[in-house]
């Protein structure tokens, strides 16, 4: 098993440990292997979405059916969600678990993610969106801690994974 696949497997096992059974995703290259692993695993219903707001709607509604869920996306996708998160999850105090990527950080070779490097985490701070950065594989269990935290505080929580972790290099 490649390092990338092993990391994806460990992420998926964290989701299973949370009793998550519904996963909505819109891909970022960095989490493509994670998404494929969810898609192949019969413990999950994987729903590809047309835009990240759709994942917020779907996962927020799933909460009311007692279904554990997670939205998987890139940093750019999360940057589009300020309206959705504040209007649904903040106004109604609905938990939501998001797995995202730390695009634009040192090591990201994509020039078009420079803006994420400048403003991504600061934007989350600006709306008081709770997050943790998973920058080494031994922090992958933080995913379940963030999921539980989102339920306890009735707000969204985000686990943000770095390039090196997702490549199995950290």
């Amino acid at each position: 098993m490649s390092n990338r696949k092993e990391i994806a497997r460990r992420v998926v096992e964290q989701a299973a440990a949370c009793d998550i059974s519904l996963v909505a995703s819109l891909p970022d290259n960095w989490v493509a292997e994670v998404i494929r692993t969810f898609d192949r695993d019969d413990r999950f219903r994987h729903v590809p979405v047309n835009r990240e707001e759709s994942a917020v709607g779907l996962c927020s509604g799933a909460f009311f059916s007692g279904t554990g869920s997670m939205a998987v996306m890139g940093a750019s996708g999360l940057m589009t969600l300020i309206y959705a998160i504040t209007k649904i999850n903040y106004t109604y105090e609905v938990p939501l678990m998001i797995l995202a990527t730390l695009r634009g950080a040192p090591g990201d070779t994509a020039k078009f993610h420079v803006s994420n490097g400048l403003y991504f985490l600061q934007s989350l701070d600006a709306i008081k969106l709770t997050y943790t950065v998973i920058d080494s594989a031994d922090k992958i269990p933080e995913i379940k801690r963030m999921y539980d935290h989102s339920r306890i505080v009735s707000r969204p929580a985000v686990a943000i994974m770095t390039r090196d972790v997702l490549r199995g290099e950290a």
Partner: protein
Amino acid sequence: MTIPYRDAFQLLAGKREEELVVTSAGNSSQMWWDVTKDADKTFYLDASMSMSTLFASGVAYGLPQAKVWAFMGDGAFVMNPAMLMVERDLDLPNLVHILVSNRVYGGTSDLDLPNKPVTDYVAMAKSMGLDRCWNFDTLSALDDGFDAAFRGNDKGHSFVVLELEPMTAEDHRIEEPPMDGPEIKFRFGRYIESIYGTKVFSHQF
């Protein structure tokens, strides 16, 4: 032809049985509250541009024994019409997507939608593979077609377009649902817990 906004909502409220309802940005929250005063079986998802039907899909997905109606104004719909691709993939037989088409942004002073005279919402839905689509532009047609459109969806997700007039000036003055977000959350969630035996709220004191 178009149906007076209030008349359509009154007809649906009269025919509703145990369906859970999710309302939308625009005017559907206001009008549904006015004609039902329902504070338990309805989630008033106000200011939720384009997300009400996928929110309802999440409810319907995990509660296959429930029937779920989701209102969406066409002002919200046009912001994210490809939601129907996701809904088609899910194809939930217990979900009715009710598109309230009055061709204006009803929640923001009834200003016109782009492409107002010609957009064909059913054609848009069919282009994405939905085949259980209805369009009603008279009250009698809605009454006659109600069972097929709203109750006959055991084969899959239904998409129902209601061609309505904008709300009247008098209707714009009716009360908003008099609840804050957390009250709506708990009333709706507790209702689901009591009826369906599902544990919605966890990690509490």
